[in-house]
């Protein structure tokens, strides 16, 4: 695992694993990789606890072999289910919660756990995953960089640039040619939106034009919806942003 020296030092100095631990870090920073290191360090089995329910929690009080129970980005309902586990931890159970932000967790959960945070990666560390410095401006974690492996980066950067510079001149009907480029069943749009956001922000910094900031804000809202709304229709979201951007003129 590249970087994260502080976390490694913490892990190596532990005599005993905390009963409940929250790992906080941006998407792709290596949370799952680090959990495997924890499991190896203590020789504990690692169990995916994503589908936790009350019945499963009751059974945990009977287990005899120590194990790590991992749950990633639990919703509020799942967090409420975990409360008993946190208040009366079973002897052989070690709970690790992964999240991109402690703000996504209930205060009652946060207060009962140790929190370990991932540090931002520096340029040198990220260059071990790619030589593309443009990509590093957009993808700030190893996981995010690796997601762009099979992505035609140069083509999409050029597309983002065209959108930023020429959308005001495009015919309304031609906007669909932009939105129909993507296969929405794949993750192409999820990888493209950060590029577009980056291009808009770069242009805004250079020109300081208000309409560019409005466009940037539209795309940022799009990014939030893609991340936070389950099963959202990505094509309609993107069309909404593109049409909104044209209206900004």
């Amino acid at each position, binding site marked *: 695992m590249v970087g994260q020296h502080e976390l490694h030092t913490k892990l190596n100095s532990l005599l005993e694993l905390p009963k409940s631990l929250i790992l906080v870090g941006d998407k792709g920073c290596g949370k799952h990789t680090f959990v495997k290191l924890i499991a190896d360090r203590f020789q504990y089995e690692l169990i995916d606890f994503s589908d936790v329910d009350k019945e499963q929690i009751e059974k945990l009080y009977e287990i005899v072999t120590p194990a790590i129970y991992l749950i990633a980005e639990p919703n509020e309902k799942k967090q409420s289910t975990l409360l008993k586990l946190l208040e009366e931890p079973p002897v052989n159970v070690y709970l690790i919660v992964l999240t991109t932000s402690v703000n996504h967790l209930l205060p009652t959960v946060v207060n009962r756990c140790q929190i370990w945070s991932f540090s931002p990666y520096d340029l040198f560390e990220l260059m071990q995953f790619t030589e593309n410095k443009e990509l590093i401006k957009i993808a700030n974690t190893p996981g995010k960089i690796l997601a762009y492996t099979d992505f035609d980066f140069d083509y999409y950067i050029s597309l983002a640039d065209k959108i930023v510079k020429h959308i005001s001149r495009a015919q309304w009907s*031609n906007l669909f040619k932009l939105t129909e480029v993507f296969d929405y069943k794949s993750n192409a749009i999820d990888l493209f939106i950060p590029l577009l956001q980056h291009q808009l922000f770069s242009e805004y910094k250079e020109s300081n034009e208000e309409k560019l900031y409005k466009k940037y804000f539209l795309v940022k809202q799009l990014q939030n*919806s893609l991340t936070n*709304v389950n*099963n959202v229709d990505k094509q*309609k*979201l993107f069309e909404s942003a593109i*049409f909104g951007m044209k209206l900004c003129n």
Partner: protein
Amino acid sequence: MQLEELKSRIENKWEITYPLVFLSADMFLPMQYVKRLVLEPEFVEEYVKASGFFATSTNNIKVLRTPELNVEVSGNYIVICKKVEPSITPLLNIIEFPKLEDWMIEDYAYSNLEGVKETNIAWLVNVCKHDIYRLEQEIDRIKLFDNAERNIVFEQFRDDGIFNDLSELNIFTMSSALQNKDIQKVESVYESLQTASSIVDVEPLGLYTILYNNFKKMIKVWMNSNPTEETTGMPNNQIWAIKNLKKMYTKEQLLKVFMSLLKIDEGFKSGKFPIEILVDYLVITCLVS
């Protein structure tokens, strides 16, 4: 050849000599046999929707449809027609299909709805007014489920008004009324929706999808200085049809409606927008643009 012999040849996988001429007043029974003989079912469905005389090719068997056959046919053809000219009759292998009687339609329903109570099947056949095509559609909905679940699902569908006999008032009536800003028609469908005893098939998400697709097509054509197959991604006949629609929306209104439609999906998936008010919202969005 008689129909029974054809059925036997299909079931036993014996050789069949082409061309075959299916003489029938309607398409339903002949198409059941075509589906067994021709190996590309999706293609066959398209063929059924078209009318007139044209040749198609699949697995080396060509399926032709014509009101009256008056030319000799040779080769791997199945011809479906209502009449054959007497002079060519001796030269052809004609299979006469019986007219669909009510008892045959009922038999079709019973044999395809295993698991559903007989009283329920009889009710469905009546609601569909013995219309075989309508019945086939409703039966296909139930056949998606296992035999053990079918009766429960059937009764749920019945209670929710999903089987309906008000075929005049449905999702397409509402969507075209909105697109044409036909306020009277919208009011009429809307009033029916409010009546508890009415059974109107206006499924909100289906209506939303139709409106989204159609407004998108209108933008692609009306707001394009040169709408072609290449520039719109639409076939020419569709472009022509949309060009000739009465323009009930200005360009600004079209954009406003379309952008409102785009926000709906995220709205109800994020919980901001309850689906119960979707039809109301769509009506207001289109009419008050």
